[in-house]
């Protein structure tokens, strides 16, 4: 299977290469998300929100259930100790798998009120956990848990400190979704699915952020909204958007659009050289190869 690339800037082949083939690595999903590569065990983890399952896939071996039901879990990442962190979406918590795969809740309430539905999650090198808290896990068909009431008046981006304290990073968003750091962690990118934009924030030493600025506003009318977002080691920004995955340079200029079929929801870099991109879609998980590696995960 191949995918098309359009909106090409002249230099983009250097970044994404010329072979735009896709390998299907899983088709056992209704709505896949949470793509994350575990460099320790060389396994790829993903969620099926609608299928209510967390999966892992080992090259040459296949898929295996990690957690089912999963409270319609959404985004995932590893912390620096190699523990899997989960944005719990329908279950309205952020939780962590311990080394023995028991589950510990890290956040469930802010200022005494239940969180909305944690959507995507990322870890900074100092161990702080950042996540977005959009409202979709209380509303979307086939993705909700047992309490659909929204209590908070904000859709926050939060961080959990090393001491376990939950702190609001920003409440600028209508529907904060994907988030990632620049390779040097001086910038935090957060996208909004509803306003169809990416904002970027200067990150302070303590992990708080300065006032955000617009990085890119999508105006293309193709189906698809900002959802997953990741940087490569050069600081280029990949973001799912209308009609596929968009690639931007550090200034926000569009370098290309990777028209991965099947409505991409998110993606993650992986394999030993971090030059594979695993794309989760509505219906399957696919893998392609690029030239410039992604920012390695923990």
């Amino acid at each position, binding site marked *: 299977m191949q995918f098309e690339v359009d909106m090409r800037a002249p230099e983009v082949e250097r970044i994404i290469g010329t072979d735009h083939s896709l390998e299907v690595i899983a088709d056992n999903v209704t*709505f896949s998300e949470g793509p994350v590569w575990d460099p320790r065990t060389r396994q790829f983890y993903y969620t099926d929100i609608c299928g209510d399952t967390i999966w892992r896939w080992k090259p040459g071996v296949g898929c295996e259930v990690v957690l089912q039901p999963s409270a319609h879990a959404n985004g995932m990442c590893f912390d620096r100790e190699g523990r899997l962190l989960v944005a719990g979406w329908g279950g309205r918590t952020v939780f962590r798998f311990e080394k023995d795969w028991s589950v510990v809740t890290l956040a469930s309430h802010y200022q005494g009120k239940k969180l909305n539905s944690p959507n995507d999650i990322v870890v900074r090198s100092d161990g702080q956990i950042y996540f977005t808290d959009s409202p979709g896990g209380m509303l*979307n068909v*086939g993705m909700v848990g047992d309490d659909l009431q929204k209590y908070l008046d904000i859709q926050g981006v939060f961080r959990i400190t090393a001491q376990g304290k939950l702190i609001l990073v920003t409440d600028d968003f209508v529907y904060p979704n994907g988030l990632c750091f620049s390779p040097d962690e001086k910038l935090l990118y957060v996208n909004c699915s509803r306003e169809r934009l990416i904002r970027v924030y200067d990150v302070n030493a303590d992990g708080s952020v300065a006032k955000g600025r617009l990085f890119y506003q999508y105006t293309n009318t193709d189906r698809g909204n900002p959802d997953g977002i990741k940087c490569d080691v050069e600081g280029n920004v990949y973001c799912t958007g209308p009609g596929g995955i968009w690639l931007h340079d550090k200034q926000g200029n569009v370098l290309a659009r990777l028209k991965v079929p099947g409505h991409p929801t998110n993606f993650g870099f992986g394999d030993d050289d971090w030059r594979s991109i695993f794309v989760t879609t509505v219906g399957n998980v696919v893998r392609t190869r690029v030239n410039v590696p992604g920012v390695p995960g923990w």
Partner: protein
Amino acid sequence: MTWSFDCVAGPYKGITGGVAWNGEWILFSAVQEERILRYDPATGAVDDFRRYTGRTNGIATAASGEVFGAQEGGRRVIHFKADGSTAPTCDLLDGKHHNQPTDIIVDKQGRVWFTDPHNPVAPYGPPVYPFLEHGSVLRLQRGPNGAWTLNRITADTKEPRALLLSADEKNLFVGEGNAEMGGRCQLRAYALDANGTAGACKVLYEFGEGERGIEGMALDSEGHVIACGGWKKSGSGPAIFVFAPTGELLESHGAPFDLPMRCAFGGRDMVTLFVTSGDGRLYRCDAGGRRGVSRSAGAA
């Protein structure tokens, strides 16, 4: 006798929709604002009953005091619990996600009936699940373990908008058809057997080509069907109709606002009719001395 309508709340953004009396307050939906408000007929005060309702339209109050909502934005019926939380019910009909519920009632047994038409406004979230090819009246029922199951009641409706049970619950009235989507509109009745299974459809009243049919209904103490319908665009205009249970159109009261939406009797004596509207308001009217029937708590 002319009915006069007084605005008692609003305007809100978009339409007001579902309306129900819970024995104490009139609850009504500001659908686009994603709020359910409550109006106290004794004091005239209006405040929030619930926020962040996910575009809930229809509201039903049960004799137990429970409140249910038809959540158009989430394609499900939800239960607004007394502790402030909101529980889902069952949104799968034979394993498939149903459409976008709009009107809702609860019967004496606590079963929740709703109309499940298609809606021009897309629901929340990515379009993973297709809509049903039919639009039907569906009914939720709680099992001994508290789990909900969902059954289809009508097999011949396409875009049912409104529903009402007769006082003895042996007759189901359905406002069928959506003129905005180009459909012909009817008032229908289905005889219900002891299990609540619907018999053959009886068309009680047929609206003309292009006429907007019935969006909401209430029952009066004599068994009449009080129905909101019509629009300025065509036909005889926006109105509150009074139908005999046999379907004879007894009265038609022109409304001074467009798109009458839904209605419910309320207040201490149940002699005031509350009407929601396309202009985002809540109206009250004396309804010519007619008295309502309510199954809600506190309403004898």
